[in-house]
């Protein structure tokens, strides 16, 4: 589905079904250098199980036009404007990595729009090493290689994403390569610069779920401790053996956690 927002096309995957605003809405926010397709095995399922799904391509990513937005705060406001443009009053937000910070900030700034939050592979602060941040600016292939290596827990993923016979690590690398030049640096710089996480937590009153991979090398479970301490209504699910790319590595476990949480 495509909507006009801020003078650009905003593209949203609706899970293979027409969007039906009368159903409870779940909005998925991808992470840095990604697009909606990282949620293939969660978004399509929920869309066929009684939810109205919006898996966005953030500005400048995937099929959405415009420039990538330079801060988590700007992205959070964009999500709220997108919900308004589509005519959705309230939605559960599910975010991965950078997208988890966007979801959190959106819930803090626009509490009336957010019914619940699921933060997948999250951390605060989400500091990016100097080396990686520089590489995202000066040498995207090197930066992509680093991020791809750190995103996966091993050399075999069952059941494969989007299905058996797919090599998850290369799917992830190709998706990063598919984004326009410059997007990667804007995204990682936004993660690195975001400082409002704990203040945002204090303002969030809706239920929050943290889903963390025990073998995540980018946002390890300990890096989310500050968030869980600062949130008032929080559940933490650790997925054994999962790396940063939980959606691809353990799609069923993530889906189960989301469903138990009420997604």
């Amino acid at each position, binding site marked *: 589905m495509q909507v006009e927002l801020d003078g650009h096309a905003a593209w949203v995957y609706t899970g293979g079904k027409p969007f039906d605003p009368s159903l409870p809405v779940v909005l998925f926010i991808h992470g840095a250098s990604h697009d909606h397709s990282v949620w293939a095995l969660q978004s399509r399922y929920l869309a066929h199980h009684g939810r109205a799904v919006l898996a966005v391509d953030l500005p400048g990513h995937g099929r959405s036009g415009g420039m990538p937005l330079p801060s988590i705060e700007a992205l959070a406001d964009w999500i709220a404007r997108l919900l308004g443009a589509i005519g959705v009053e309230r939605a559960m937000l599910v975010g991965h990595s950078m997208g988890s910070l966007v979801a959190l900030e959106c819930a803090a700034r626009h509490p009336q729009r957010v019914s619940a939050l699921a933060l997948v592979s999250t951390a605060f602060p989400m500091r990016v090493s100097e080396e990686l941040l520089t590489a995202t600016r000066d040498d995207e292939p090197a930066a992509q290689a680093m991020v791809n*290596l750190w995103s996966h827990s091993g050399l075999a993923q069952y059941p494969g994403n989007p299905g058996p016979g*797919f090599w998850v690590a290369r799917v992830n690398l190709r998706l990063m390569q*598919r984004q326009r030049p410059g997007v990667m640096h804007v995204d990682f710089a936004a993660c690195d610069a975001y400082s409002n996480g704990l203040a945002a937590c204090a303002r969030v009153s809706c239920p929050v779920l943290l889903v963390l991979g025990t073998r995540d090398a980018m946002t390890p479970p300990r890096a989310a401790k500050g968030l869980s301490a600062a949130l008032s209504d929080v559940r933490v699910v650790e997925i054994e053996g999962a790396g940063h790319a939980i959606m691809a590595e353990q799609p069923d476990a993530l889906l189960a956690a989301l469903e138990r949480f009420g997604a």
Partner: protein
Amino acid sequence: MTPPRHPGFDTLSLHAGQRPDPVTGARATPIFQTAAYVFQDTDQAASLFNMERAGHVYSRISNPTNAVLEERIAALDGGVGALATASGQAALHLAVSTLAGAGSHVLASRSLYGGSHNLLHHTMRRFGLDTSFVDPRDLDAWRAAIRPTTRLLFAETLGNPGLDVLDIPSVAQIAHEAGLPLLVDSTFTTPYLQRPLDFGADLVMHSATKFLGGHGVAIGGLLVDGGSFDWERSGRFPELTEPYVGFHGMDFQEESTVAAFLLRARREGLRDFGACMAPFTAFQLLQGIETLSLRMERHVANTREVVRFLSSHAAVESVNHPELPSHPDHALARTLLPKGCGAVFTFEIRGGRPAGRKFIESLRLFSHLANVGDAKSLVIHPATTTHFRLDDAALRVSGIGPGTLRLSVGLEDHADLIDDLAQALRASQKI
């Protein structure tokens, strides 16, 4: 900056796509010899059918043993995934039928394996698909032969029978300028000698029957999706970028930004044409791939010894191998195939058909058969076997002489191979 260490080729050959079985602890890849898989409940069944969840339903579409093989070859070739098929022929048919249909056009190298040529030139034509063939070395010919209906460019890494080295970067560029993908048959080189996706190819196919298996015991094919071709931007592939009524109205590129081709090939071509691989075959091919590096190294080393021997033999008119300076693609081979040009090549024996026949019949170690890429050394004399109906003039058109012999050099002690060749060459000249 030191880039992070990714697992190397040999490690991937042994581990990619598989870990010890979580239930039994089996270290080897189990052979999941089952046609179907029990559903947990009706909802899980429906979700699997509708691709809301990943998993196995029926072994024509996917199988856990095959999935390990598919992920392993994808890892070795640098693709986003792969499909295991009943044969190399089935892999080519699956690639072509996923992207092209009646009224469309395929542009292929004229230096193809005979079976590929048959499929495209005769059989697919019966289904309304037109293929034209060009000299793979003639870049202008590639460019000029592209039509509005073209859907795919296709060539072999090392052409048949002349071992033309495919200039993958240049042909890929021509394809991409026209919004088209390049499919490369990598059977003779395997990802150990060359990864065509790294040079710009978009899809790779293998007859896994050959060097990947290496044992000559199983027929199989693999089709790898590089994941870098943007079907939407090309605008020529509504099969991948518009809702498909044959599969729940799915728009494959919307579903998977980078793996749309493979999704469609599995959910349509494998499902409907049904040329799937048996899990036992997948297991046998995995056994082969575990030692791919070691074997290819030896294949190449033995081939170099044999080429050296033949090149200076009085009964040999010429040797056709890209590692020789006399080969027209020698320079290209050095840049695109620095580790070697494989183990299949041809040479011309003095004395034409009769000498060729006598040579073949005198060999003791080399096996006379129609295959390549076995651990054992193989030989064939096209003029008296595969092409026996053709006279000398017709043979020339196919790039074959009456005295052309094709060797596939195996893993035996090279001194024994050379002894065998020496005695058979002697015998061939005594007639």
